[in-house]
C-alpha cells in the first residue's frame, strides 16, 4: 500500500518540479499551436533551440532578460519580507521617467558622471513611487496589493501627461521625449549588439540581494517577517521598519529596470517603455522560488521564451502572443506543482 502524507517531500523532488512544470506547460500550450495549424515539435524547436543556435539571437535572449532580472530581483526582495509589491511595473516607470529627465539634462557631463547619476536617480524615483503604498501599509495598515496595483495606472497617466505636454519630442512631434544625451547612453557590452551595461548592472543587483537576504541581519529579519509577522514581532523584530526597508529597496531595484530600458535600449521615454516587465517579474520571482539564483535562471528562461515567440511567429506564422500564454501557463502550473513539495509518498 502507498500512502500520501503531508510532510516535506525529499529534496530531489524540489529540483524536479521546475522541469516537470516546463514539460506540463508545453503539453498544455501545444493545443494552441495545433489550433494555429503548426507542428508543436517544430514550434518548440523555434521556441527554445533556434534562439540559442545563433549568436545574434542568443545575445538577444540576454537583452530581453535584462529588465526581467531586475524586476524579478525587485519582487523577490519585497516578497521575501512578506510585502506583496505588485507595483514593480509603476516603480519601473518612475525610474524610466527619472532616467529620461536626467539623461536629457546631463548633456555637458561625461559618461562617468552622467551614468551613475542616472542610475542613482532611477533608484530614488522607484523608491519614492514605492514609498506611498509602503508607508500606508506600515503606518495605517492599508493593504499594499491594491494600492501598489493602482499606483501602476496612475504613473501611466503621468507619463502620458509628460509626453503629450512638456516633454513631447520637438523634432518628431511624436509622444516621446527627446533623445537622452550621448554621454548618458549605456555602453554596449558586445560591440554591434544590443547588449548593454544594464545586463551587468542586473547581475550586480542579483548578487547583492542574495548577499543581503542570506548573509545579513536585515535579511534574517526580512525572512522572519515573511514567514510570519506575529512571530517575528514576538521575537523582537521591528516588523514595520523591516517591511518598509524591503518595500523601498524593492521599488528602487524596479526603478533600475526603467533606467536600463531608457539608457540601454530606447534612448527616449516612450509610453510603451515597459512590456509588462513589472508583472513578468512576479512570474520570474515565483518560478525562481524567491531564491535570487533561481529567479535569475527564471528571468533568463522568460527572456528565451520572449525571443522564441518572435522566432516561432516569423517561421511558422503562430501569433506572437503564444509567448505570453506560455509564460502565464508556466506560472500557474508551477504554482500548482509547488504544492507537491509538501507531500511525500510512503509505503505502509
Amino acid at each position, binding site marked *: 500500500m502507498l500512502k500520501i502524507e503531508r510532510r516535506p517531500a525529499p529534496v530531489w523532488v524540489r529540483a524536479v518540479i521546475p522541469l516537470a512544470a516546463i514539460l506540463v506547460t508545453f503539453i498544455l500550450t501545444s493545443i*494552441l499551436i495545433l*489550433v*494555429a495549424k503548426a507542428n508543436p515539435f517544430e514550434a518548440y524547436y523555434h521556441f527554445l533551440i533556434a534562439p540559442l543556435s545563433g549568436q545574434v539571437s542568443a545575445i538577444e535572449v540576454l537583452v530581453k532578460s535584462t529588465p526581467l532580472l531586475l524586476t524579478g530581483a525587485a519582487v523577490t526582495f519585497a516578497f521575501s519580507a512578506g510585502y*506583496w509589491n*505588485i507595483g514593480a511595473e509603476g516603480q519601473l516607470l518612475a525610474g524610466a521617467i527619472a532616467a529620461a529627465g536626467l539623461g536629457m539634462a546631463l548633456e555637458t557631463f561625461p559618461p562617468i558622471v552622467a551614468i551613475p547619476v542616472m542610475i542613482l536617480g532611477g533608484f530614488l524615483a522607484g523608491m519614492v513611487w514605492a514609498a*506611498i503604498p509602503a508607508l*500606508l501599509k506600515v503606518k*495605517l*495598515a*492599508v*493593504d499594499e*496589493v*491594491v*494600492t501598489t*496595483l*493602482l*499606483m*501602476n*495606472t*496612475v504613473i501611466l*497617466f*503621468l507619463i*502620458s*501627461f509628460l509626453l*503629450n*505636454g512638456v516633454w513631447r519630442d520637438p523634432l518628431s512631434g511624436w509622444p516621446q521625449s527627446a533623445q537622452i544625451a550621448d554621454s548618458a547612453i549605456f555602453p554596449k557590452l558586445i560591440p554591434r549588439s544590443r547588449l548593454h551595461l544594464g545586463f551587468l548592472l542586473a547581475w550586480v543587483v542579483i548578487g547583492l540581494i542574495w548577499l543581503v537576504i542570506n548573509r545579513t541581519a536585515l535579511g534574517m529579519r526580512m525572512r522572519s517577517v515573511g514567514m510570519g509577522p506575529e512571530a517575528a514581532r514576538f521575537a523582537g523584530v521591528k516588523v514595520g521598519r523591516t517591511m518598509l526597508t524591503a518595500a523601498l529597496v524593492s521599488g528602487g531595484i524596479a526603478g533600475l529596470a526603467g533606467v536600463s530600458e531608457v539608457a540601454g535600449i530606447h534612448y527616449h521615454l516612450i509610453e510603451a517603455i515597459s512590456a*509588462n516587465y513589472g*508583472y*513578468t517579474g*512576479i*512570474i520570474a520571482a*515565483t518560478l525562481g522560488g524567491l531564491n535570487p539564483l533561481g529567479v535569475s535562471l527564471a528571468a533568463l528562461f522568460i527572456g528565451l521564451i520572449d525571443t522564441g515567440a518572435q522566432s516561432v511567429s516569423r517561421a511558422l506564422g503562430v*501569433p506572437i*502572443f*503564444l*509567448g*505570453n*500564454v506560455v*509564460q*502565464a*501557463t508556466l*506560472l*500557474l502550473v508551477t*504554482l*500548482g506543482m*509547488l*504544492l507537491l513539495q509538501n507531500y511525500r509518498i510512503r509505503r505502509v
Partner: protein
Amino acid sequence: MDIFLVGLIAATLRVATPLIFGTLGELICERAGILNLGIEGTMFLGAFTGFAVASVTGSLWLGFAAAVAAGVIAGLLMGLLTVRLGVNQHVSGLGLTLLLTGISLFAYRIIFGERSVQPSIDTFPKLAPFGNLPVLGPIFEQYALTYLAIALVPLLWWLIYRTNFGLQIRAAGENPEATDAAGVNVFRVRFLALAIGGGLMGAGGAFLSLAQLGSFIFGIISGRGWVCIALIIFANWHPVRVLWGALLFGGVFALQLRLQSTGMKLPYELFLALPYLVTIIALTLAGRNASAPAALLKPYRRE
C-alpha cells in the same frame, strides 16, 4: 437642467456599466473569501469572446451569452487554483489575468488575422423608454445592458443578504472552519461564487466590445478590472454602495471627457488619475473600519 448636465449624467451611467458588472462579480468572490485578481483578464476575455462570437454568428446576444460563459470558466479556473489547490491568491490571480489576456490576443489573431482596418460589428441599439420626455429623456437613452447592470444591484443584495446561498457565501468568507462544521461544503460554495463572479466580469467586458465600441481593441479594459478591485473597498463590500462608487468613478471620467471635448485646455490626465487617487485616499480613511471578509486570502484546507 441644461444639456451639458443631462449629457453628463447619461455618459456617467454608460461609463459606470462595466464597472458595476465587474465590481459585483468581484464582490461575490471576495465575500466568499477569494480575492480574484483575475478580474482584469476575465473582463478582457469577456470583451474578446463577446466580440468574436457576435461577429461570427451575427447575434449580439449570443456573443453576450458566450462572454458570460467564458467568464464562468475563468472563475472555475481561479477556483481550481485557489480553492482546490489553495495556492497564493495574489499570484494566481495575476497569473490568470496574464493567461487570459494572452489567450484572447492569440485567438483574436487566429480568427481575425492582422488587418489594416479594425474589424467591427453593429453594436446593441440604445433603448429610449422615455424618448419624448422633455429635457430628461436623454438620460434614459441607454443600452439594455446598463439597465441590466443596475437591476443586478438589488438582485445581488437580495442574493447575499436574503437567501440561504448568500448566507453560505458570507459564512465561507468569514469563518470557513465553522461553516464546514455546520455541514456546508465550503469548496462548493467558493467555486460557485467564483463562477457567478466570473460570469459577471465577462458580462462587463462584453458591454465594452458589444455596446460601447463595436470592436475589440487591445486596450479595451485598460485597468478597469483594477478599478473594480478598488471600488469594492470603497464600497466596504456592500452591493448597494458598489453602485454609488461606480457612479462616482463614472461621473469623474465622463466629466473629464466632456470638458476635453469643449476644447478646454486642461491636463486631462490629472482627471483620469483622480479616481485612482481618490480610491487610495478612501482606502486610507476606510482602512481602520473596513469590514473585509475575515477569511479573505486564506485558503481553506480540511485536515
